[in-house]
């Protein structure tokens, strides 16, 4: 158990707790339910030798959220998808990372800059929400799905960027 594992385990427990007991009861404008637990998945380290582990962690994170929402498998599906897409997307955004992917890199706003953090967060949150709402509706009603996706993705992204900001200020100290 090193420092990084402990930090991520605490973050895992904290955000699962926040999601289930606080944010699952928050509805902006009546139906926007922010999924802040994504913060944990987005903040997992980048290390290509461990990427299978991250997929499995993401799967179980999603499954726990599902168990509390009776939405069996939906969050697990969306979480595994973004955990898979996460590393290629960041490599696309920051090409010079390619040479360093064997070492453990942690995502932080301080190191990658505000612009990249915002783009990275928004893309992944959008993918997650779109897949989640599409599976949930289970019928082809693209207008409704897109509307819900965009509205919820904006709220979730703003919250996640705020958390990243607070997080990077903490590590500065």
């Amino acid at each position, binding site marked *: 158990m090193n420092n990084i594992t402990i930090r991520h385990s605490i973050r895992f427990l904290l955000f699962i707790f926040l999601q*289930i007991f606080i944010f699952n009861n928050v509805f902006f404008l009546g139906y926007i339910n922010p999924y802040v637990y994504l913060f944990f998945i987005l903040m997992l380290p980048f290390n290509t030798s461990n990427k299978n582990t991250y*997929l499995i962690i993401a*799967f179980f994170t999603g*499954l726990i959220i599902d168990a509390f929402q*009776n939405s*069996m*498998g939906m969050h697990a599906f969306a979480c*595994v998808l973004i955990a*898979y897409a996460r590393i290629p997307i960041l490599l696309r955004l920051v090409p010079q990372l390619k040479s360093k992917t064997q070492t453990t890199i942690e995502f932080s706003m301080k190191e990658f800059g505000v612009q990249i953090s915002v783009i990275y967060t928004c893309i992944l949150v959008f993918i997650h929400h779109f897949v989640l709402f599409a599976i*949930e509706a289970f019928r082809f009603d693209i207008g409704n799905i897109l509307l819900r996706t965009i509205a919820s993705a904006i709220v979730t992204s703003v919250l996640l960027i705020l958390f990243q900001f607070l997080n990077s200020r903490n590590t500065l100290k």
Partner: protein
Amino acid sequence: MRNLLEFINKNNHLILFILLEVFALFLIIQNSQFHKAAFINSTNGVTANSFAIVSNFKNYFSLKKTNDLLLLENAKLKSLISYQSTDSISSKDPYQFISATIINNSIAKANNYLTLDKGEVDGIRKGMGVITNKGVIGIVKETSKGYSTVLSILHSQSKVSVAIQKNNHFGSLQWDGKNYKKARIYDIPSHVDLSLGDTIITSGFSHIFPSKIKLGIINEINTKEDDKFHNIKMSFIEDLKQLRYVNVCQSLNKEEKVELENSSDE
């Protein structure tokens, strides 16, 4: 064979990804069938217990409001009793009620569920109806010893048999997945005379819910001239977002009725 192993070794990340996604899809499909038992849901130990703790905590904040509501309901029940005792024709359709507290509720998804703090020990069984005095809430889907989950009326598979109070024409109510305050009513022929503000009640045909519970008010009629059926939307009387206490009901004559209906089918 060697090539295959090499292929698996080379693409292990992609293969694990696909396996996990297929497993998640399997779970989704498994769970989408109404009567199929889902093997992880919020009636099981850890999740339900933690909901119960948080729910206990949250109850303290709404004590005053709840108390007022209970007083109101009490008064209403009392008046009902006095009304019934003077009525010469007593009800032939007795229902048994079990009161329960909601410990988890959702309204914002396309398929919503509730969790109640009573289960098999308290007499709750699969398929019982869940109501309040202001409306229909759902049907019990899964039970464990001390908890049960309810398929909310706000679920794409929920269907309730309803009637128009003033003329007893019946139809069926289904939620369209958009606004938790409104639902659609189908199968009412277009010649039936309707107006905005008419009350919708349960018909009692399903043996799940007692008849004549007021549950909604018509607030939109979009019927065109050549339609065969009315195109109606109603708004729920009960605020499904603020619910705390419900009654689980079971018809005491259900078996007899179902048996009779089945024998006349043959």
